[in-house]
């Protein structure tokens, strides 16, 4: 009894410690944010800026857990504020006499920015959103007081710059959590995960579901790696120097994990067809390869310095490749003489030779990719490296073009609608409503569930509004002077910054902080105008609600139609694999597909569909890999006789895969599959005209045959998936009918 209770109490204790550590990090971030806010307020008062609370709002907006993220967001915020301010100035100068034209131009700009914001990712997307609504924020007041337009712009830019300066310095120096150390951790973890994934894929003991889970994990990890890399760029000069190598690392991670999948699929296929001899012949090489991926202590390398050992081992394995190949061939029960070939069963023997040659070829490709990957990892240990001269390709972001247009149109329509209402009703606080509608329409374009994100913010607004009224009517009148005012603000800010620091409530917290600070409108000589406070608050809430309604009514996201669009854009990536120029195509394809695939997965509502989409993403990656490999191989002049056959086959395969799943997709895919098989059999015929052995095997034909086989496997997989989905749908319908 005592043992179990001891165990339980230690489990509870460690869980408590984990929670306490997490909470401590949140409170530390809250402390940083609050310090920066108060610092910004104090400096803004000292410099006599017009709205000190806006500086504090900027601090709240850039409050993020890692200092690199803060700096990155700050950079884009400053850039967008400058750009937006200049454009506002230009618009006021050109359309000072033309109210309607001015509003139309602002709405157009906001629409353009919303569209660009959808096109980009993370903080760049935020930058575009901000560039959009800054024009509203500065433009409308500047239009009303055209004579002071320049001062208004300068004031706004100084306030944002002040907020950024305070936020940046405090977040970087006061108990900072740096992005660069988190980047180092993620790089190490990625390579460790990769080695264990390779182990699972080669030995095949991991269940399908588990490999899929790893793949989904990798999708998230790769995005996280890229964002952390981008943040570290702004924080840490050492990461900045390593940028090309880090990009290569991410790209090679993607490429190698797809090849690992292809190897796993090939092994599964061999087992399913009863080619156990081939699997057994490949086994020793798999084992050697796996050992080479580990250090002497039989562990994956824990840091870049240890990766050097792995690189050396892999190099050695490649140097002794021919000997290993001989061993593998020797393990295969060969037909000993010409007579035996004529016997029944020899067919099987020749087929096994072809399969072994394919397996060896793919394995060698994979080992080379793993070697490159490990090399990049090892080279990260020094500030400078020869690898940097090779450069590194940037991550690719893809979006559905129509979705970007819709986001732009929605923002422009909402803003013009609110402005028309503002003018028609002569609403004194219409400005706040227009501004907030523009903010929401541009800021939430990339959220998978924008309506929910907006509602969380609205709840934050309501909470912040109540806090502002309490602070405004009971606390602040009693506080005289800057120091006392700060004391009065701290409890309210503490709540907001804590909410902001917790990822689950970040939306709530940002709404709270924004509303609280904007409503208080702290100035040197406070004007206690409760009616003004209420009117402004109500106008802001109206603006948000209109935008939220637009998200759920005007071309809503995450409807069946939208999901189909994303799915189609995702599969259309295959036409790029088919047509785009071959240089760097592997990287661009992998990066683009993963970006879209993650968008598509995030739109899923149930766990089952999520799994379906992860699987679809994997199939797509494998098909694309095979297509690119085929195009690459067919450049070989000796295979010119197959050129037209390969081209026709690629066209059928791509057309079949991008066909909408509802139609005859299964039939098309089946047709493509059989034509791939026909060509594969033809090549195998050519191969077994001379019984292939280690010496006589024609590498280019084998390469062609391997790529065809992988394409065929991907097609078969997609066909099975579609058939499964159809069956499930039919089952659903039957259940519905039974219930009815």
């Amino acid at each position, binding site marked *: 009894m005592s043992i179990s209770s001891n165990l339980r109490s230690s489990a509870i204790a460690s869980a408590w410690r984990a929670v306490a550590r997490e909470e401590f990090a949140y409170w530390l971030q809250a402390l940083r944010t609050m310090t920066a806010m108060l610092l910004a307020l104090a400096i803004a008062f000292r410099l006599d800026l017009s709205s000190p609370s806006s500086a504090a709002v900027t601090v709240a907006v850039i409050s993020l857990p890692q200092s690199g993220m803060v700096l990155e967001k700050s950079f884009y915020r400053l850039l967008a504020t400058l750009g937006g301010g200049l454009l506002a100035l230009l618009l006021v100068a050109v359309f000072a006499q033309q109210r309607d034209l001015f509003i139309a131009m602002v709405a157009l700009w906001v629409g353009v920015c919303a569209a660009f914001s959808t096109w980009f990712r993370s903080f760049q997307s935020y930058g575009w959103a901000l560039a959009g609504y800054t024009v509203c924020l500065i433009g409308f007041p500047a239009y009303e007081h055209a004579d002071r337009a320049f001062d208004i712009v300068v004031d706004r830019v100084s306030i944002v710059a002040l907020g950024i300066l305070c936020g940046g310095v405090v977040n*970087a120096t006061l108990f*900072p959590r*740096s992005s660069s150390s988190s980047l180092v951790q993620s790089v190490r973890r990625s390579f460790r995960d990769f080695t264990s994934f390779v182990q699972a894929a080669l030995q095949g003991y991991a269940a399908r579901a588990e490999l899929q889970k790893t793949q989904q994990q990798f999708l998230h990890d790769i995005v996280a790696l890229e964002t952390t890399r981008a943040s570290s760029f702004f*924080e840490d000069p*050492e990461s*900045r120097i390593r940028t090309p190598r880090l990009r290569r690392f991410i790209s090679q991670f993607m490429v190698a994990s797809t090849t690992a999948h292809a190897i796993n699929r090939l092994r599964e296929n061999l087992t399913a067809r009863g080619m156990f001899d081939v699997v057994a012949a490949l086994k020793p090489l798999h084992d050697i390869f796996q050992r080479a991926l580990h250090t002497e202590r039989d562990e994956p390398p824990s840091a870049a310095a240890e990766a050097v050992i792995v690189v050396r081992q892999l190099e050695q394995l490649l140097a002794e490749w021919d000997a290993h190949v001989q061993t593998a061939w020797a393990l295969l029960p060969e037909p000993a003489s010409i007579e035996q070939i004529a016997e029944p069963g020899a067919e099987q023997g020749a087929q096994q030779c072809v399969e072994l040659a394919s397996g060896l070829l793919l394995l060698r490709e994979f080992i080379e990719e793993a070697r490159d990957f490990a090399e990049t990892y090892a080279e990260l240990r020094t*500030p400078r490296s020869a690898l940097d001269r090779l450069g590194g390709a940037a991550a690719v972001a893809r979006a559905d073009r129509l979705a970007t247009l819709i986001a732009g149109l929605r923002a422009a329509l909402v803003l013009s609608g609110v402005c028309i209402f503002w003018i028609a009703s002569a609403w004194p606080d219409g400005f706040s409503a227009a501004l907030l509608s523009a903010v929401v329409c541009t800021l939430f374009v990339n959220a998978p569930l924008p309506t929910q994100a907006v509602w969380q913010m609205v709840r934050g607004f309501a909470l912040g509004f109540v806090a502002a009224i309490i602070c405004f009517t009971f606390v602040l009148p009693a506080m005289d002077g800057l120091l006392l005012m700060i004391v009065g603000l701290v409890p309210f800010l503490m709540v907001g910054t804590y909410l902001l620091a917790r990822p689950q409530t970040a939306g709530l917290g940002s709404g709270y902080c924004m509303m609280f600070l904007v409503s208080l409108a702290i100035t040197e000589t406070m004007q206690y105008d409760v009616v003004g406070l209420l009117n402004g608050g109500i106008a802001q809430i109206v603006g948000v609600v209109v935008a939220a309604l637009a998200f759920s009514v005007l071309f809503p996201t995450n409807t069946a139609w939208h999901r189909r669009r994303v799915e189609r854009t995702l599969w259309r990536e295959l036409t790029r694999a088919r047509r785009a120029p071959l240089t760097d195509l592997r990287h661009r394809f992998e990066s683009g597909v993963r970006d879209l695939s993650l968008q598509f997965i995030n739109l899923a509502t149930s766990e089952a569909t999520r799994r379906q989409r992860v699987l679809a993403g994997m199939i797509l990656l494998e098909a694309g890999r095979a297509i690119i490999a085929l195009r690459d191989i067919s450049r070989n002049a000796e295979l010119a006789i197959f050129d037209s056959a390969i081209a026709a086959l690629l066209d059928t395969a791509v057309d079949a895969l991008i066909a909408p799943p509802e139609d005859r997709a299964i039939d098309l895919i089946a047709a493509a599959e059989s034509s791939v098989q026909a060509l594969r059999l033809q090549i195998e015929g050519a191969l077994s005209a001379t019984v292939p052995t280690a010496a006589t095997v024609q590498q280019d034909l084998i390469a062609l045959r391997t790529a065809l086989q992988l394409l065929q496997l991907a097609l078969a997989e997609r066909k099975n998936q579609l058939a499964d989905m159809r069956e499930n749908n039919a089952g659903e319908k039957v259940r519905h009918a039974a219930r009815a």
Partner: protein
Amino acid sequence: MPRELEFQGIFFPTLLIILIIAAAIYWLLDGVLARAGLYRHVWHASLFRVCLFVCLFSALGLMFYD
């Protein structure tokens, strides 16, 4: 050195120019120090870098304003 400069009828503080110059020098210096691996031997690298910038900017400012 005048405290304010005029460009096309817009006045702006000389300190702004000095800030930009200081930022440029800092950018170069920061890269060199990082390549030399100095920041690995500093206890609080980001604090060190902030202070480095403050020193540079103040030194330049004092030079022009004395």
